[in-house]
């Protein structure tokens, strides 16, 4: 017996995709395998590592804990949607490059989305708050020092961008 498929409209990074998925399909799998946006990574599939974090209506959500069918009619942002349309890196991406905030890059998309949402809520975090902002994401490579630096640097870049505009 074939599995029943559900038509779902997923709006990802401003583009609407029509996919047909079984009810049990995870949002992370739908993004990666049905929509073809492989920037979102899966590290644990049980909500612990944060690698799969995407923004749903601006809030960070673990896409391995959400079903694709329940993401219909929401605005999803993945790592592919963080840079400006002309390719300019977002302040968080820029800060990661400057501070050597990544090594293998596998956890990075989840950190970038998490911090993007975090800085929107708290644009100038204290050092302690910068550490807390990433305290739900696992990275096996960097030892976190430079990721914390990147959070602080991103806040700086964000502030100077605002001052400039």
């Amino acid at each position, binding site marked *: *017996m*074939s599995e029943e498929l559900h038509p779902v409209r997923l709006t990802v990074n401003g583009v609407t995709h029509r996919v047909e998925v079984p009810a049990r399909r995870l949002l992370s799998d739908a993004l990666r395998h049905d929509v073809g946006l492989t920037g979102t990574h899966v590290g644990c599939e049980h909500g612990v590592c944060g690698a799969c974090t995407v923004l749903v209506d601006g809030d960070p959500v673990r896409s391995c804990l959400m079903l694709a069918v329940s993401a219909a009619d929401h605005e999803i942002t993945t*790592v592919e949607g963080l840079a400006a349309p002309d390719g300019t890196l977002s302040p968080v991406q820029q800060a990661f490059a400057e501070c050597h905030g990544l*090594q293998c890059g596998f956890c990075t998309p989840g950190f970038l989305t998490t911090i993007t949402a975090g800085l929107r809520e708290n644009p100038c975090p204290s050092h302690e708050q910068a550490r807390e902002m*990433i305290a*739900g994401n696992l990275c096996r490579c960097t*030892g976190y020092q430079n990721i914390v630096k990147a959070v602080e640097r991103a806040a700086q870049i964000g502030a100077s961008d605002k001052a400039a505009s």
Partner: protein
Amino acid sequence: MTTKLMGQRVQRVEDQRFLRGQGRYVDDVAVENGTLHAAVLRSPHAHARIIDIDVSALLDMDGVHAVFTYDDLADFTPEMAEPLPLLIPHPALTHGRTQYALAKDEVNYVGEAIAFVVADDRYVAEDAVGQIVVDYEVLTPVVGIPTARAARNLVHDDIPGNVAAHFEQNVGDAQAAIAGAPHRLSLDLSIERSACMPMEGRGVVARWDRDLNRLQLWASTQTATGVRAAVAVKMGLDLGQVDVITPDVGGGFGVKINHPWPEDLLVPMAAKLLGRMVKFTEDRREHFISSAHERGQDQHIEVGFDDEGRILGLDVEFWHDHGAYTPYGLIVPIITSTQLLGPYKPQNYRVVFESLYTNTVIVTPYRGAGRPQGVFAMERTMDAIAQYLGKDRTQVRAVNFIRPDEFPFDHGLIFQDGRPLIYDSGDYPQSLEKIKALIGWDDFPALQAEMAAQGRRFGIGLACYVEGTGVGPYEGGHVHIETTGKVKVATGLTTQGQGHATVFAQLVADELGVKFEDVEVVTGDTRRMPYAVGTYASRAAVMSGSAIHLAAKRAKEKALKIAADALEADPDDLQIVDGVVSVKGSPGTSIDLGTVAVLSNPLRYAFDEKSKLATQFSVGHPDRPPVPRGEEPGLEGKDFYSPDRATFASGMHAAIVETSEDTAEITIHKYAVVHDCGHLINPMIVEGQIHGGVAQGIGGALYERMAYDDAGQLLNASFMDFLIPYVSEIPDGIAVDHLETPSPLNPLGIKGAGEAGVIPGSAVLAAAIEDAEKLPVTAMPISPSDLFTLRLEHTQ
């Protein structure tokens, strides 16, 4: 003049892709392509005989394309039905054993592969796996080192005592020296199992090209060439029919050096049989129960020393838990047995180990590979001697150091690469000065007393290590200058986040005199460099770095020769700056490297404006062959680097911890690292490696353990339960200082740095906790409840 890039904190080029979500990991390959997906039936028992496997329920399942068990393998090739290779044989490994791609008759750990299902997607494949019915006769499992040693039950019926190997090395007469020494101590020390746990698990994708009769394989591996050779043998193919491509790898830390994993063979087999692309992506639970672990060792040390704390004799006996099979040979215990000597020279040394079978996941090297255990043994011994003599811990270490004027220092032992254990260079007294300054060693007693007055327990610890890095046999480099002036570089080893695309480009830009931006590096693609070994043991910078440097030199020589002809100058008078060859002192006379590349390749046909310059009517001397004897067309350089023996990096870590009187919670207030990896190519990247290593070391010391129950079930096979550190577990700010004693063994004077951060973690933290608590710490990792129990035992 271009500034030299070696030693600069150059930003990484690969980050641009990663930051935009354009990394290409194995699971990102062949998306939306009608690719089939695989899932594996794994043993639920640690030890059982397989009586029967019934796959009949799968035959009509929608979306299921194939199911394979052991009995199907021989139909494909006879080799497929044989045990997996024992990769690194050793004369002492008298009872080596490896598993089959799919279990034959018996399973020996929870997670061992039994059947392989290929379906439309992973969900359906997992459904199908759930429908397979296996009839088992459950046997008593052997779990843990004491049980293995007791040998009341055997993992493999025909292997007596569960002992795969018994190995001994001697320098002098340790036992006599200990017996005759003024003082003697003995210690029992143990370390539990942990695991690499890269964020990306294993993965493999295969495409069989029927038209070309070749296999294309993408693998998340630390050795593309190793996977290639293993797969070719098992599939009955010529090496030339197999291409292995290792795209971005989401961390390795050792576990991805083992090959082939069963799936590396089953995926291409299925791809060939089904004529479709097939993909296997390991999930996290599978990674816990079917990829490798490391670290589990029990160690007994006897030491004899004089009044100064100078070691006169050291006798070490240890038992290594290698799990159910030995695919990677004895590398881990051999490393422990040799590297535990660290920066010291006990004058008489005996080491003997047994490598034991247990019904648990196999063991292969995990970042540091046997060294954390060795350093734990040696440094705990140093601390014990200091305490016994009432001396400062740094003094006891200092009297035992190999002195700077004693290099090269021959220990009289054989190292893991089968070569003599000879240290190339180092300066341990200077390292000690640096670490003392960095952690505030001399000021600590005052701080400790001040804290004690407030009712707080502070402790300090330090540990030293020496690490054999850059082991052979060899690596190669290929440098190709395009007619655009862009430089394409290939090396065969893989990359797992170490920034190879950046550091190798730095080396090429320096040697060749081109812009860093014009250099592009490819790693781990057997089509570009079929001769290679792999990325492990902190060898990439030393091995491929040296090879690429030599290859760039060759390309440069050739470029200068051709340019000299064109400019009618002497090659010795030429220089290359920013991709332009010019006569030194007469900047008007110059030629672009791209044009030199055009000239290097005499053409019959003109393809574009550039190539017009190289046709037979435009270049060359009519009386000489267009390609001179002994030369090749094209502007390329290729070379290999193969060292006499390993380089030896070294370092020291120190930490200040606080232990809570109420909760036994352990807090690290300060962590400091001094390390010497010879010349640094990119200090930013080296520091990043150290940060990451320290986090893994802290994880290993305080959090990570493989909680097997007596039935051999891994009780914590998820990130919920196996605790790898978040930022909240890592001290805020790790102090790092570099020391550079260049290696005389390679042209760049470098040693490796990849594992430096992790090696002394358990030793340092055990020492600091011991200092805070004033009770002996002999087993790691140590959790608050372990510490609490220790306190109770100690007060009884």
